[in-house]
């Protein structure tokens, strides 16, 4: 089981975002991949605490969606949110420091991997309850009515069986809210193949039943993701009400740090690795002659340095002083 690779992938040329953008997108995806790999390595060393939900294999969605948004649009993502946070421009050092529970983290060590939020980057938050991002973005869209800004919710296909999905999709439609829904269908909800627990196994049909425009695209093709996001965002921004994109992708790692993914049929991962989003983008860059091997090697080195610097900064940041517990308030006193 699991999501089959999209057979009608939108060709890479669609949207023609230009040479620099593809290279930039690749660099961002590479940063996310290397960041996640370093999270895993540090996790095994006991330096990243609790649990982590890595997005290896889903980088094209984080990067393509962020690139298709405007700076002042708002994004709500999930506990698998490191990629989205980085793609929205969150400083990798701040994020790494947060994951290591240090005082210099994006949320001063209060949030951790599953709950990172970054208002300065227009990231409402990463929500640890499945479907929570849909609710948060729906509300943000209510506030953004008529402003020319939109709210974007990213969520997994598992969220489409939550009340959040059914209620908020209807709510956003009847109130014609500027909401873009991005479903990252990575094939598995936790340890369970999505078709096994999703009646009809057709998320688009559910959405279309509510007269919300829906499109299914190849979520491993960053240019396709970017193009579809831009087009849908334009409709939403123009007052057309919510729109929905189902992005087919694959979670190359387990659900969380403790999951080896043994429930996957043999060969499935290998099949999807052939469609790895970074590999996909890199071959497009090479085919189009956007960069030669030496330039790509330099890019790789640069990303390595950024990731190393991020985690070195994190490791150098102190842990929060327990004395702060007494000083912290549950309320805003403004």
């Amino acid at each position: 089981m699991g999501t089959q690779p999209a057979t009608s992938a939108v060709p890479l040329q669609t949207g023609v975002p230009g040479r620099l953008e593809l290279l930039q997108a690749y660099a961002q995806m590479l940063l996310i991949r290397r960041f996640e790999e370093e999270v895993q390595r540090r996790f095994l060393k006991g330096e990243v605490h609790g649990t982590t939900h890595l997005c290896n294999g889903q980088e094209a969605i984080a990067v393509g969606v962020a690139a298709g948004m405007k700076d002042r649009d708002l994004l709500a993502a999930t506990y698998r949110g490191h990629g989205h946070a980085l793609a929205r421009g969150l400083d990798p050092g701040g994020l790494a420091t947060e994951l290591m529970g240090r005082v210099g983290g994006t949320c001063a060590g209060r949030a951790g991997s599953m709950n990172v939020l970054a208002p300065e980057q227009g990231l409402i938050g990463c929500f640890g309850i499945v479907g929570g991002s849909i609710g948060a973005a729906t509300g943000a869209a209510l506030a953004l009515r008529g402003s020319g800004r939109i709210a974007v919710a990213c969520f997994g296909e598992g969220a489409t069986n939550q009340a959040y999905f059914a209620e908020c999709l209807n709510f956003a439609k009847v109130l014609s809210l500027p909401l873009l829904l991005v479903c990252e269908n990575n094939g598995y909800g936790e340890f369970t193949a999505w078709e096994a627990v999703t009646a009809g196994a057709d998320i688009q049909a559910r959405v279309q039943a509510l007269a919300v425009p829906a499109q299914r695209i190849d979520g491993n093709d960053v240019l396709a993701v970017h193009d579809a996001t831009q087009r849908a965002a334009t409709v939403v921004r123009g007052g057309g009400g919510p729109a929905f994109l189902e992005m087919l992708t694959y979670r190359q790692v387990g659900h969380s740090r403790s999951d080896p993914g043994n429930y996957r049929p043999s060969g499935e991962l290998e099949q999807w690795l052939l469609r790895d989003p970074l590999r996909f983008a890199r071959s497009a860059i090479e085919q189009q002659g956007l960069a030669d091997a030496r330039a790509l090697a330099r890019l790789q080195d640069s990303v390595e340095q950024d990731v190393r610097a991020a985690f070195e900064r994190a490791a150098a940041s102190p842990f929060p002083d327990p004395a702060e517990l007494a000083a912290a308030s549950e309320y805003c006193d403004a």
Partner: protein
Amino acid sequence: MPEFREALRLAIAEEMQHDERVILIGEDVAAAGGVFKVTEGLHERFGSARVIDTPISELALSSAAFGAAVAGCKPIVEIMFGDFMALPMDALVNQAAKYWYLSVGRNSVPLVVRTAAGAGGRFGAIHSQSPGTWLHGVPGLKVVCPSCVADARALLKAAIRDPNPVVFIEHKRLYAAKGELGEELEPLGKAQVVRVAGEGGGGAGVGGGAGKGGAGRGGDVTIATVMKGVPDALAAAEQLAKDGIEVEVIDLRSLRPLDVETVAESVARTHRLLAVEEGPRTGGWAAGLIGAVASEALGEVDDLWTLCTPDTPIPFSPTLEDAFLPGADAIAQAIRMRFGLESKTRMSEVEA
């Protein structure tokens, strides 16, 4: 004199006038004016962009309030019955209540969820509960419970202006109560002594004399409660005064924050505390209040106890529902019994 529901409406209208970021959303709040007629006329006055009828989707409503508050609105949500608060809980408890803390003070969440609670209307087990019990233990939330017309306006206005998520619980049996308006705003989280015991004479009654306070004590017992419990406690105090028992009554007005200090100050005068909650004792705020007072002021205390509802669902039939609730007579009986003026036999006769 305005009704309680009119005072609420006035508060919403004044705050919508005062701040254009304030919006009102909920089931039947706009065209129909709310099932309890609290929001009547607001749609006509403020328009469809700010007073919005929504689907029957409580989770979407609380989500909408959370996200909108984070993105710059000041939403007021009406959840028709307090029992329905089980549905919007995730966005309130797991998102709104935690956001200020997790954002390290960068982003507040100014929203108000209004909901109609309380029994006595023969609405049965699932349209009669008071959700304060479910919510008073959630850090980051405020839980406000007005008891009178003046507070209906002043506390709701304060809740709308507050930068934190506030659940505002309105007792259904108070909507038609009449009273004078008071101050425009009252602070959230501050209890009020609404009856001072023993004014002009001190507690000379049955409980006086032997307690820890000694001479000059100001009454025999403090009752702390909220919402409809307040007029019930005041009526009980009148009854008890005839028996020579002087009662001080505290309207807590807020379950979170809970003003333990004001209660402890009163207990320092009366040395006895009865917490009256329209809800089960297990997990309730009354038990929490008793615990906090014991923890912080045990030296002042001769006695403290609760009067709550049984640990069963709320019954429908009038005879059962009336006996289930801690009304004025039940409060007076509970205190008489505690003071040895009423035998258990007689108490059960009264209940029967």
